[in-house]
Every structure is written in C-alpha cells, then in structure tokens.
C-alpha cells in the first residue's frame, strides 16, 4: 500500500489556475466519493486552500493511481489535463510523507510558519473522516503529520514572531501593556493599513476604538464599522488622553502631534504609557514624541524592520524544523514498513506450506507400504526443511531489513513468490505511538 500526493500550490501554479481547481468546502462528499471509486485508490483526502489543492491518497499502483487522480482533477473541474499537468506535482513513498509533514508544519507555506495551514488540513481530514474516505493508513498518517506540526511549533520559533506590520504592532503593544483588554485604540485619519491594524487590535481584545478624521462624516462611517466612537478632529487633543494606542495616517503635510502637545495629555493620563504608530508618509507625529516619558513612537518603517528581522529568524528556524521533519519521516517510515511485514511473513509461510502439503500428499498417495510412523517422519522432515529455509528471511524482515529498508524486501518477496496479500496487518497499528 502506498501513500501518494497529487497537487499544485502557490509554488507551481498562479492563482488563476489554483482557483479553477479548488474544491468548495460545502460539497466535499462528491469529489471524495469519486476519488475512492477510482480503481486502486482505497483512501483519499482533499486539501483545498487558496494556496494549494492537494489530494492525499492510498493506492496499490503508484503510477496508475497518480494518472487516474490527475485525470479526475481535470475532469471534475472541466479543465484541460495537458495544461493542468504542467502545474501538478506528484510524490510517493518517502517524498510523499515528507511533503505532507512539511505542509502541515507550515514549511511549504507562502509565509513560512503561518498557522492557518494546520487547521485547514485538519478540516480537510475532518471531511474525509466524515465521508469515510480515509482509512487506517491515512488516519494514522494525518495524525502523525499533526503531531509533527505540533512538535515543530513547540520546539522551534518558526511561528513565534509577527511577519506582518499589523501583527508586529499588536506584539509591540503587548510588550508595553501586557494585557490589551482594557485598552483603547484611536485612529487618526483613514487608510488601508491603519484599518487593518485596528482590526488586528480588535481581534486581540482591545476594549474600544475611537476614530477621528478631518471629514467628520468619514470618521462616523469608520467608527460604525468598528463599533467605535467618532471624535471631531478639533477635539483631538481633548480626547487623546483616553487613547492608549494611536494609529495615525492622515494626509497632512506636517506633523499634527508634537512632544509639547503631550505634556497635558500625559498629565491627564497620570503618566500611563502611550503607544503611537505613525503610518503616514509624510509623518503625522513628530519624532520627538518618542522622547516623552512613557511614550513610544513607531513609524511604519520601524515596524517593517521588525517584520524583516522576524522573517530572517523564521528562515533560520525553518532549518531546525526540517531536521525535525527528517527525524519523524524516519520513524514513520519504519512503522509503515512494519505494517507490511507480518502479512508478508504469513503469506510466505502459507505459500511454502501449500507447496509442501501438495507434494507430500502426492508422495504419500503412491507409497503403499508406508507405515504411519514413516508418514509422521516425512511430515517432520518436510516441516523441518521448510522452517530451516524460512528462518533467515523471517528474522531479517522482523528486524526491519538491512538499512531499515523493509519495503524493498517486502516488495521483492511478493514479486519472487507471487504472494497475494489481502487484508493489511491491522493488529500492528498500535505500535506507532505519537
């Protein structure tokens, strides 16, 4: 039984292609059932996000399975297979395992370390479990992938730092205020980045939002959006002391807030810290504000530097993460191969025993003066020969083969002795501990 991966991602396909082959999350039953209806495909999971569409499947015939799944992708989406194939990648064996582990650990993401992908795979697995298209192999495999992702997350700093300006602002605010739930954000002016940052602050639990704008109507409109309070621009310095975090992005040609303006504000705040984030170009807030006691001023350039440093750190941590993935692949592969060992040994013994019995019966049938004692001895002799012959291969397989490549031995034995394996060794499932 082989695990294969067929798919495309942001690395191989532009968004125009990706969106054409994406699967709607509301109707996953249809494609999943179609997949497991493909001959040779026994289990399947579809992962479909805005950055990747991938099918993880279990198949007996690697090449055939891959070809049929490619065809399925093209047919299902009415997309020409020739075009699609240019963007598709396929993996099997160790590479398939590595690929899925890396995807789950967010090592293959557009922003390495972003946390969403693990949840998306879990959802995808949820569908497959719900529609019963994933079985013992993929169940185990996906759970292993989740545990690898968790290990990477806890043992490396791959996801521990912000890689967007908005998140960097939230993280800095936490380093000043610790708890944001009783803090108020004030937006001065409007702008995409400003609003995005305000949204991040709201998602991180700030208590309230105040909005001010030279055009009061715009302030009111934006305030409604954030369920906040609009403040007339003239009242800015009357209200500023109520804000802990100030996001500023006006189109003003000069600075609108200077250090002197804060004397009164800080007095009214009883010196409680303030965090200014100046997103405007040219600047809204005089750099001297950063020198006021308990006031911290960051410009968009400062935040971008934070982000760049964090990205650098993530790249370094990714190396450690790859190391963890490698270790886990080794372990998982060992287990996967051990799955096939017992049935192979059983089938091999059955094969030998079958030959022995047939030949023994033939001999006994034509032997008139064979005593029961003699027959017993013949039984014993043939058994002994068979056991002696089977001992070395059996113990080698049980030990995991030479160099840990049990799969090669299993495949060779099956081909050499024409072994047909029915059911997988379900008993061995308990051996792989997560």
């Amino acid at each position: 039984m082989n695990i294969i991966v067929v798919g495309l991602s942001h690395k191989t396909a532009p968004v125009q292609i990706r969106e054409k082959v994406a699967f709607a999350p509301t109707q996953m039953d249809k494609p999943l059932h179609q997949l497991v209806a493909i001959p040779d495909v026994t289990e399947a999971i579809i992962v479909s996000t805005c950055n990747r569409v991938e099918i993880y499947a279990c198949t007996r015939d690697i090449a055939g399975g891959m070809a049929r799944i490619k065809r399925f992708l093209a047919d299902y989406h009415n997309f020409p297979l020739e075009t699609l194939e240019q963007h598709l990648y396929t993996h099997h064996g160790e590479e398939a395992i590595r690929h899925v582990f890396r995807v789950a650990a967010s090592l293959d993401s557009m922003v390495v370390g972003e946390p969403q992908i693990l949840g998306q795979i879990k959802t995808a697995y949820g569908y497959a479990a719900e529609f019963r298209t994933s079985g013992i192999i993929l169940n185990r495999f996906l759970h292993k992938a989740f545990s690898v992702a968790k290990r990477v997350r806890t043992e490396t700093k791959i996801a521990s730092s912000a890689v967007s300006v908005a998140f960097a602002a939230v993280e800095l605010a936490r380093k000043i205020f610790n708890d944001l739930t009783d803090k108020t954000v004030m937006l001065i002016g409007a702008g995409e980045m400003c609003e995005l940052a305000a949204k991040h602050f709201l998602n991180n639990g700030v208590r309230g939002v105040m909005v001010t704008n030279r055009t009061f109507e715009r302030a009111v409109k934006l305030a409604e959006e954030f369920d906040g309070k609009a403040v007339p621009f003239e009242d800015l310095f009357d209200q500023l002391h109520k804000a802990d975090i100030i996001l500023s992005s006006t189109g003003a040609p000069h600075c609108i807030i200077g250090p002197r303006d804060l004397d009164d504000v800080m007095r009214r705040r009883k010196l409680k810290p303030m965090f200014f984030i100046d997103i405007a170009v040219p600047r809204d807030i005089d750099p001297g504000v950063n020198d006021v006691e308990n006031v911290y001023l960051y410009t968009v350039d400062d935040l971008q530097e934070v982000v760049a440093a964090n990205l650098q750190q993530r790249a370094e941590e990714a190396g450690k993460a790859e190391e963890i993935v490698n270790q886990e692949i080794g372990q998982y592969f060992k287990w996967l191969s051990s799955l096939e060992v017992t049935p192979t040994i059983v089938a091999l013994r059955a094969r030998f025993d079958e030959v022995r019995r047939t030949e023994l019966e033939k001999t006994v049938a034509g032997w008139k003066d064979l005593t029961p004692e003699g027959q017993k001895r013949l039984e014993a002799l043939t058994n002994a020969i068979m056991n002696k012959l089977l001992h070395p291969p059996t113990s080698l397989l049980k030990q995991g083969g030479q160099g840990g490549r049990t799969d090669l031995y299993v495949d060779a034995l099956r081909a050499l002795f024409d072994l047909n394996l029915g059911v997988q060794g379900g008993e061995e499932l308990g051996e792989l501990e997560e």
Partner: protein
Amino acid sequence: MNALMFYVTLLLYFAATVCYLVYLVKPQPATGTASRWLITAGFVLHATFTLVRYIQDGHTPITNLHESLSFFSLSVVGVFIFFERKFKIFILGSFITPLALILLLVSTLFPMGITPLNPALKSKWLVVHTVVAFVGYASFAVAFGAAVMYLIQERFLKRKKLGGLFQRLPSLNTLDDINYRCLTLGFPLLTIAIISGAIWAETAWGTYWSWDPKETWSLITWFVYAALLHGRLTTGWRGRKAAILSIVGFLVMLFTFLGVNLLMPGLHSYK
C-alpha cells in the same frame, strides 16, 4: 554539619545563578528547569540552616552581620520565589539570584561563629523587629530587580532594538506591576519594623527615638519609599520614574543596612 549546610547552600545559589544567567543569554527549557530546582533546593536548605542555627543559638540568628546578611539573602530568595510563582515571570530570577548570591558571599567575610547574645538584644521584640525588617528589605530588593529590568526593557523599546533579550523580558506593564506590588509589601513591613523598633527602644533604652544613625537612615529610607508610593497613587509616578526611584530607594536601604553598621558607630552597630 551546620557549616556544611551553609556552604552547600552557597553552592546551590551559585549554580542557580549560573543557570539563570545562562538562560538569559541562551534560553533552553532544561536550563530553566535546572535553575528553578536549584534555587528552590537552595532556599529549603538555607531555611533549614537558619532554623538549626536558631535552635543552637537559642535566639533569633540575626544578631551579627554574618547572620543578618545570610537572613537577608534568605528573605530575598523567599520573596522572589513568591513573586515568581505569582506572576509566572521566570526571567526575574536572572536579576534576583545574583543579588542573593552576592549577599550570601559577603556574609562569609564576617565572623561566622555564634556570638553570645548582646544583653540589650535579649527580648521577644528581636524576632519581630528583625524578621519584619529583612522581609521588607527583601521586597525592596525584588522591586529593585524589576526596576532594573524595566529600565532595560524601556531602553530596548525606545531605541527599537527588539532582539532576543527584548523578547525574553516581560512587558513594561508587568514589570511596573511587580515593582508596585513589592512596594505595597515592603513599605508596610518597613513601617512595622520602625514602629516595633521604637517600642522596643522604649523598653530597652528608655526612649522611643534617639536619632541613632540607624534610626535616622531608616527614616530616610522610609521617606523615599513613602514619596514613591505617594507619587504613584496621586500623580501617577509610574514606569520610568518609579523604576528609578525604587533603585534609589534600594541603594539608600542598603546604606541603612550595611553602611550604617560598618561606618557609623551607634546603638545599632552589631558586628
């Protein structure tokens, strides 16, 4: 036996300090766990040592400089463990354990033998007055540690140097909060120590207050912290100002404790 316990404590504090400092530079879970165990083990042994000494002495073992420094060190570790558990701020240890280690090291510079009790100190007030004073001192020491951390972290934020140490230090607000909590613990204790001292002085020397250098400097220390607390509660002396003042307060307190004993002869100069 007793001396052995003392030196093992010293060794444990030393090991804990090394681990805490290593953790500051290169944080690894194993180092963290090790430092926590070492300081806890050190504290337990140190407390046992102090208790044994109490039984051997037959009086509270805070009557000479060696004993006082050792008890100060013990209190610092105790107050630190309390705040560390409460606030879950592990990294505080990297700033507090070196202080406890230094205090214990300095205590070895003074004669360690058991001295016969000065008759003037033979009173049940001895235990109240000294223990309360030293636990108060220890709270100020932890406040000092948090203040140093605050100033470092504030500098990082102002200069926008957001590297590794910045990531490991807690938020400004948390540090300011610890500072405040330490003051609200230390200040009442210092007040009780001064009042109990005055009452004791009345029974021992016949006067509540004799402007002995220790008394004067205790009062100065008290005023520094009173000003800090007052400023905090009324005009919001928080953050940087509070941090600087609690560092000043700690230095004045150290002088009250050590400087007065060593440099200014007076009623309190027990060596």
